[in-house]
């Protein structure tokens, strides 16, 4: 224990970084740490193979602020998880107009459940909280410890290699305000450990990063940017070539084309199956032509079918359906002046055929079954509505059209006597 060991190979080069003392047991180390702390050193440390119990007090290490960082990040994770779910599932494009599509929420309805319901969001909130908190704990710890740091001056010492196995070390940094080579050496020598070893900074330490490594890592990283750049460019560039179609996603499937002789799907060469004998397809059992087609014996019916009863409630139903399905074109009063017609005229749509006024002579003379048929199958340029409106509702609309037509042709006698004065 007499002065600095000079036979160490490290002593020949570099600046003095600090002094290293070795101890054989945690007990001895803790005792020494207390003395160094009391001597007033600030930039020093102990190095041990495992966390030694009681060393924090012996060195005067203050509790770390890591838990606060973890809490903060955990809190952000919690709020972030909540906002993410609210934003993506409970807001829509119309709530925040002007956002790019990939930032818009999409509030679709699932099984009639509320768009935003906290209980259903708790699992994800919990996971994001834990995830961010764990990141904070790990990366916060590493950052506060100034890691990763591939090389430190200490690695120059051969004996220090046992710090991770079974030896205990004290290291006093030469940058400490109280550091004085001679004085500190003799102080450390008297602590009951080995004689202090001077640690010098040598650039060619065996543990240092190989020189070419940094350059090659940099090159590698910059090479990694090329594919994403190519892709990014391809997204905006135009090309005459068809897209490369790697993943087919069932885009090209076997199919039966019109002029093809026989399909490969079935042994008989057909592409679909004929109806088995003696069966009726669902919804095809419609013998009652009066009710379903508005025809009796091939002629348009002039009466209502027996399935419907004409009363005020029925006609009101017809009014309500008419206003939904027909009024956009034919107008609420049936005069052919609905909003669609108005828009088409305003835009001067070429070839526009105006909806017929339901009050003109032809329309009034049509039998009930004819109007019914016009609704079911459409007429001339008017599209069919049969698959949107049920037969009963179609008959209700017919009855309402008749009421509309009557309202335009009635004379004073048809009006109840009590309202007659109002019309004069």
């Amino acid at each position, binding site marked *: 224990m007499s002065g600095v060991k000079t036979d160490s190979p490290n002593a020949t080069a570099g600046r003095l970084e600090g002094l290293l003392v*070795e*101890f*054989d*047991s*945690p*007990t001895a*180390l803790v005792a020494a740490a207390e003395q160094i702390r009391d001597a007033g050193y600030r930039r020093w*440390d*102990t*190095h*041990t*193979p*495992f*966390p*030694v*119990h009681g*060393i924090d007090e012996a*060195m005067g*290490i203050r509790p*770390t602020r*890591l838990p606060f960082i973890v809490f903060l990040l955990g809190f952000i994770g919690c709020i972030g998880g909540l906002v*993410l779910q609210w934003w*993506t*599932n409970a807001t829509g494009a119309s709530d925040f107009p002007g956002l790019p*599509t*990939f930032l*818009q*929420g*999409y509030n*679709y309805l*699932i099984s009639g459940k509320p768009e935003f319901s906290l209980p259903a969001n708790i*699992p*994800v909130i919990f*996971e994001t909280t*834990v*995830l961010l*908190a*764990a990141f904070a*704990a*790990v990366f916060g*710890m590493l950052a506060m410890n100034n*890691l*990763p740091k591939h*090389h*430190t001056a200490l690695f120059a010492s*051969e*004996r*220090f290699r*046992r*710090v*991770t*196995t*079974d*030896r205990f*070390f004290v290291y006093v940094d030469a940058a400490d305000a109280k550091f004085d080579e001679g004085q500190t050496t003799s102080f450390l020598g008297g602590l009951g*450990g*080995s004689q202090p070893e001077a640690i010098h900074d040598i650039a060619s330490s065996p543990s240092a990063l*190989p020189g070419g490594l940094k350059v090659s890592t940099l090159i590698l990283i910059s090479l990694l940017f090329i594919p994403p750049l190519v892709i990014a460019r391809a997204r905006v560039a135009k090309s005459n070539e068809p897209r490369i179609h790697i*993943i087919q*996603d069932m885009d090209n499937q076997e199919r039966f084309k019109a002029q093809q002789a026989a399909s490969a799907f079935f042994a008989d060469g057909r592409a679909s199956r004929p109806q088995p004998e003696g069966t009726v397809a669902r919804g095809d059992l419609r013998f009652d032509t009066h009710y379903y087609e508005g025809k009796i014996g091939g002629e348009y019916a002039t009466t209502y079918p027996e399935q419907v009863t004409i009363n005020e409630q029925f006609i009101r139903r017809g009014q309500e359906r008419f206003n939904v399905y027909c009024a956009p074109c034919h107008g609420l009063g049936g005069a052919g002046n609905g909003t669609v017609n108005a828009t088409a005229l305003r835009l001067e749509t070429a070839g526009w055929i105006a909806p017929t006024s339901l009050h003109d002579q032809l329309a009034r003379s049509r039998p009930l079954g004819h109007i019914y048929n016009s609704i079911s199958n459409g007429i001339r340029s008017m599209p069919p509505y049969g698959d949107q409106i049920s037969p009963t509702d179609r008959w209700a609309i017919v009855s309402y059209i008749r009421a509309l037509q009557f309202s335009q042709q009635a004379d004073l006698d048809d009006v109840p006597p009590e309202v007659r004065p109002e019309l004069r």
Partner: protein
Amino acid sequence: MASVPNEIDNTWNRPGERAPLITGGHDFTSLTDVACGPAETYRPPRAWYIAFTISVVLLAILGASIGYLIINGVGVWGVNNPTGWGFAIINFVFWVGIGHAGTLISAILFLFRQKWRTSINRFAEAMTIFAVMCAGIFPGIHVGRIWVTYWMGPLPNQMAMWPNFRSPLLWDVFAVGTYATVSLLFWYVGMIPDLATFRDRSKNKIRRFIYGLFAMGWTGSSRHWHRFERAYLILAALATPLVLSVHSVVSFDFAVSQLPGWHTTIFPPYFVAGAIFGGFAMVVTLALPAREMFGLKNIITLRHLENCCKIILLTGTIVGYAYLMEFFISWYGGNQYESFIFRARALGPYAWAYWTMITCNVLAPQLFWFKWCRTNLWVMFIVVMMVNVGMWFERFVIVVTSLSQDFLPSSWHYYVPTAIDWLTLAGSFGLFFTMFLLFCRFLPMVAMAEVKTVMPHADAHAHVPASRSFDYNPDDFEPEQEQK
């Protein structure tokens, strides 16, 4: 595998005296030597090569069967119309469950200050990571078009639609994703000091560089240790509710649906207990050969194994209770669909699977009431193998019985897995064991730094009895000797 006589019996409990957790009179030096042995020996034992070859072959089978699946579509599996969740989901739940023991040992036992965890926590955590890797494959490949699996993540698709956050399947993505990430961090952070040990002991430059890279320049500084321990504690505190949540969320996949046999509130606790049960069985399955192969018998002692057996007994009994309770409720609840499905489980077309499960999961662990069984390695091995099988069948029974006999009897369909199903399952074991064997070979299998803290020498305040004190003198140390 060794027989009992050459084991040191440290399973005794004497009042006032602590049974040693590390046997064989080890000190820090010799303990490090033993624990680093597997990674430092030039040639691992013959058994390692054999096991590794088999595992890699199985891994190749996994790759081939997944490739076959991708090219041909999920039709190559045995899934049929009512049974849309076949092996893929069974295997997923099975593997996720296995992982739980690792986190339990590393986090929950840490919070409970169970010192015996230190010998087995590292490889149990590794087991977690590899099991979650295996688990993660299955939901990914069972979606059919695996190239759009990223739709599971929180990203808008081309129609600007986001995933539905009210669905348990999405919770699952978050739960398993977080679990995998946190487990990996926990494992890696705990390993940093031991990687530094590897770095410092390595005798060639490349080895020193690579381990040094991953050890991140760890110097064992007490100021670092202080934050390290705090971070570790926080991670344990975070991982504990996390591990309970993960299998709960996995159970929501079933429990939130409205299928008889699935729609029960007992599922979350029952799944968690089952996961820990199955996971511990896997820990013992791995520990038994590993300690033999790499001479770790003094570190993973009989006492450690016995403790694992006790946990297996406890959780196995909880699982048995849950099975019983399900039956009770199906009768007591008076719902005819529920009672039908449970009758069908025990007596219906899948009765063979059900009774395999009961035998392996409920009856077999009861042997562990007897200390002789808890300390006999062969009995232990047979029981844990049965539990491994039984836990797989538990998931089979849950998934298949409820699905194959749904509400409409005309669509009932008996589920028969195909050869590809079986090969994929076997292949996932290949992945698991390949990773595990590589881990044993190249990474610190024992948490050396942690084990040292539970050795009697580590206590800076208590004076170590003379017989146990250091038998070496620091001045004798010649660095050059270490180098050669």
